[in-house]
């Protein structure tokens, strides 16, 4: 019982520490978003404004994660997505495939050159594809799990 209580306390401490990290990230992202939106407003430019609004939305998700980890009430984002993956594997995979197809097309489109389309795009696509695998393996090896 003592070891169980110690384990629960350790998990709680870990969650609180994670909450502090997520809270710090949320505050940073909100500050960046406010700065971007202010500059976009001054320059009357919709493109940085959209980046600022997207950052605000991501900060909102981090605020949610912080609150859940700090209070221990409600599921974390990773738990929600992992349960969705368990219950609706094909729908989840279809969504992931559509997103990654779009991201791949965007990255290739950004570096496309009329004279050397394949030579210009593929080093970047290969490097980023490898980094996807590397990031995933790192998350697995480091035990960064829900």
């Amino acid at each position: 019982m003592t070891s169980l209580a110690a384990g629960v306390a350790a998990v709680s401490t870990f969650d609180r520490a994670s909450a502090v990290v997520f809270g710090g990230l949320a505050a940073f992202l909100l500050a960046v978003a406010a700065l971007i939106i202010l500059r976009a407003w001054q320059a009357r430019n919709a493109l940085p404004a959209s980046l600022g609004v997207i950052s605000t939305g991501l900060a909102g998700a981090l605020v949610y994660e912080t609150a859940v980890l700090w209070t221990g009430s409600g599921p974390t984002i990773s738990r929600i997505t992992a349960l969705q993956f368990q219950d609706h594997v094909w729908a989840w995979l279809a969504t992931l495939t559509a997103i990654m197809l779009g991201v791949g097309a965007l990255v290739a489109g950004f570096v496309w050159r009329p004279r050397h389309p394949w030579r210009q795009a593929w080093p970047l696509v290969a490097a980023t594809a490898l980094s996807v695998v590397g990031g995933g393996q790192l998350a697995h090896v480091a035990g960064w799990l829900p």
Partner: protein
Amino acid sequence: MAPVNASTPRAMPRALDAVLTRVDQHRAHVARAYAAATVLFTLAALLLLWRAYHLHDVLRAALGVTLIGVALGLAYESHALRVGGSSPSDPTIAQVVDRALRRHPHTGLLVLVAIMALAGALVVHFTSLQAYHPWVLGVAVGAYVAGAAAATASAARGRGPLVD
């Protein structure tokens, strides 16, 4: 000495006009697609925000705000393509990114690699409640490379994004 074709000087501008007309039509077509996506994303965002308000759900609200941001970016792109992408004050998103990558290629590469590594980590993190599924990561990478291949092939045939 090769015979001079008298129709060549007139044929050249006509061919150029045909190419420019095709480019304009392509731009108008893509601009309409972006405008339609803007409407779709805005409707989805409003629906999410409405449900978030009624359920007092911060996560739904955050997703709704993010979608509003994406819709704003799509609206900008649609406008930039409609005005031709040639105005210095309204470059397309692809032109903005292309310029940044040309000026700072190493920083651009580092940022992209970091973002994609985070994406890979999140794919594993979001699917590993009971067990690790490496094939999900394989699907993600496969789709990413397929998207890049399709976009590059389309661009090489002259129907893709017009960066330059």
